C-alpha cells in the first residue's frame, strides 16, 4: 500500500467533516484499500432528495492507476452507470486520470456526473437514448421510477 493514500487519509481527518461533504471515509481505517462515500443527489436533477452510497477501491498501483468506483448494484439509474452492476464509466477514472488527482477528487467527479451525464459513452443504453432524443419527461420519469423502487432511499 502506498504512503500516498495514508497521507490522503490524514489530510481528510485534519481538514474535518465540513471539508468532506461526501463523507468519504475508509471502510476500515486499518486497511485503506476500501472506502465509502455518500453522494447527495444534486438539486434540479431527478436524483434530488436521494442519497447514494458509493464504494471506492484503491488499487495496489495507486496513484499511478485510478481508484475504481461502484454504486451498489441496481441502485443508480444513470446513462453512464451499468444498472445491473453499478459500474461507472467516467473518463476521469480511466484515461483522464493523473496521479495528482486524489480520492476526494474522484468522488467529486462522480457527483458531477450525476448532474452532467455524458450520453456519448453510455452504460445504460435506455437512458442514454432518451437523453440523446431530448425526451426529458421520459428520461426523468424512468429515473424517478427506478429510484422510488430501489432499496436505497
Amino acid at each position: 500500500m502506498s504512503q500516498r493514500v495514508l497521507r490522503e487519509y490524514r489530510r481528510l481527518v485534519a481538514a474535518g467533516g465540513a471539508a468532506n461533504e461526501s463523507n468519504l471515509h475508509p471502510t476500515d481505517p486499518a486497511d485503506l484499500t476500501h472506502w465509502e462515500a455518500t453522494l447527495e443527489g444534486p438539486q434540479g436533477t431527478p436524483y434530488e432528495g436521494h442519497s447514494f452510497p458509493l464504494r471506492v477501491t484503491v488499487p495496489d498501483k495507486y496513484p499511478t492507476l485510478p481508484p475504481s468506483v461502484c454504486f451498489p448494484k441496481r441502485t443508480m439509474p444513470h446513462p453512464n452507470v451499468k444498472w445491473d452492476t453499478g459500474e461507472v464509466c467516467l473518463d476521469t477514472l480511466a484515461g483522464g486520470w493523473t496521479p495528482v488527482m486524489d480520492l476526494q477528487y474522484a468522488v467529486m467527479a462522480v457527483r458531477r456526473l450525476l448532474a452532467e451525464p455524458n450520453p456519448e459513452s453510455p452504460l445504460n443504453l435506455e437512458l442514454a437514448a432518451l437523453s440523446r432524443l431530448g425526451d426529458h419527461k421520459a428520461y426523468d420519469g424512468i429515473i424517478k421510477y427506478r429510484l422510488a423502487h430501489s432499496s436505497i432511499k
Partner: protein
Amino acid sequence: MCNTEEHNIETANAEDSEERRESRAQFQELFEQFGRNNPQFNPELIELFQNMLSPLLQSQWHPEDREKGCSQEFIDSLPRVPRNKVPLTDTCSICFERFGNDNYPLLAQLPHCGHIFDLQCISMWLSNQVTCPMCRDVVNGHKVQDLDTSKAELEEDWGMYG
C-alpha cells in the same frame, strides 16, 4: 519518427523473400502461442527472448508496446532541481509529501511546463505515460528546435541566382 519506422518495416517486408516471410509468420504464431500469453513460461525468460528480437520485429509484432511511455534515457535526462530552489513547504503532487521532509530530495523538473516532482514519482508515471500529470503537456513531444532549413535553402538559392 513513427513514419520512418513504418517505412522501414515496409522496406524490410518488400525485401523479404516469400519463404522467409512465411517462416517468420510461423515463428510469430509460435511465439504468440507459447510465449507471450502462456502463464506456464517464466515472464522474465519471455521478456529476455523478446529483447533478443530485432527492434524492427518487436515493434512489428507488438505495436502496442510502442509509444507507451517515455524512454529511460529521456527520464534520466530530466533536469534536477536543487533543494534550495524550491519552497520546502511545497509538496510533490504525486506522493503528497513535502519536499522539505527529505533532507536530500531528488527533484526533477519537466521541460517546457516546468512542473517539479520527486524524481522517483515522476519516473514511475512517465515510464507508462508521456504527459505531465499537472497540465498534460506532452513532455517528450517538444523537439529540439529544428533549424529552419527551407529558409536556408531559399537564401542559398537567392545567393546562387541573385
